[in-house]
């Protein structure tokens, strides 16, 4: 059962990511990314991290993607120019061509390396599965990582101020 779920979610994630990257309409890209997030959330649940899954949906899909949508609609972003010819022709400067090639190289690299590892199974005991406990997450967050937590709040403040300033209309 788990296996099926895994492959299902994985497929959705990969396909929608491909489409996010591949297709032209930015509005569709955003929607597809939301779908990708959903798949990932499912994967998190499979990994005994329901809290993270819910957080993902709420923050990522709910807030960040909505923000993206706002911006897309605000700017009335047009469709990208249609691709002409094969994929390589759409790649512009040499650098970009190289970049695309490199991405493929990276993918192959990583996949190949990872597949050579011996399969490492997940543990099943109670302690391990206890990571899903929100209480436990909370406790760790506010004790061991308290400083990082507070720092993050300052980061968000900075981001807020920055975004406000940057997006202001020039007088």
């Amino acid at each position, binding site marked *: 059962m788990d296996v099926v779920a895994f492959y299902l979610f994985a497929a959705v994630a*990969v396909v929608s990511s491909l489409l996010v990257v591949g297709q032209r309409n930015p509005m569709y*890209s955003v929607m597809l990314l939301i779908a990708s997030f959903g798949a*990932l959330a499912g994967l998190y649940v499979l990994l005994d991290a329901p809290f993270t899954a819910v957080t993902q949906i709420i923050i990522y899909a709910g807030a960040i993607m909505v923000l993206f949508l706002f911006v897309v609609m605000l700017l009335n972003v047009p469709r990208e120019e249609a691709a002409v010819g094969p994929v390589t022709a759409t790649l512009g400067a040499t650098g*970009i061509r190289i970049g695309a090639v*490199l*991405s*493929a190289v990276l993918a192959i690299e*990583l996949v190949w390396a990872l597949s050579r590892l011996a399969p490492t199974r997940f543990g099943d005991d109670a302690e391990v599965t206890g990571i899903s406990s929100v209480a436990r997450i909370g406790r760790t967050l506010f004790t061991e990582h308290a400083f990082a937590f507070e720092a993050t709040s300052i980061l968000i403040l900075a981001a807020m101020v920055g975004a406000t300033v940057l997006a202001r209309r020039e007088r």
Partner: protein
Amino acid sequence: MVSLNHYLILSAVLFSIGTAGVFLRRNLITVLLSIEVMLNAVNLTFISVGRYLGTVDGQIIVFFVMTVAAAEAAVGLALVIALFRHRETLNPDAFTSLKW
């Protein structure tokens, strides 16, 4: 059985897809979206390894990553808006003032 390797390979693939998107797309917003894809791939890695090791640290890191991603997305989009106002286009190739 689904092992850690499966998850790692999946996140590697997603990461590469995101990277390709950063290079290939000629729309700034889509570039930002690709970056989000990359971040997600990384999140997946953290969660899966965290599950493997049996700690909550993975999830906590993901928590922070999400926060930072939110902040970054906000600022990035503000920048995009400012740039759009300047040039009326979202094509990154249009912003070449720093060219030699």
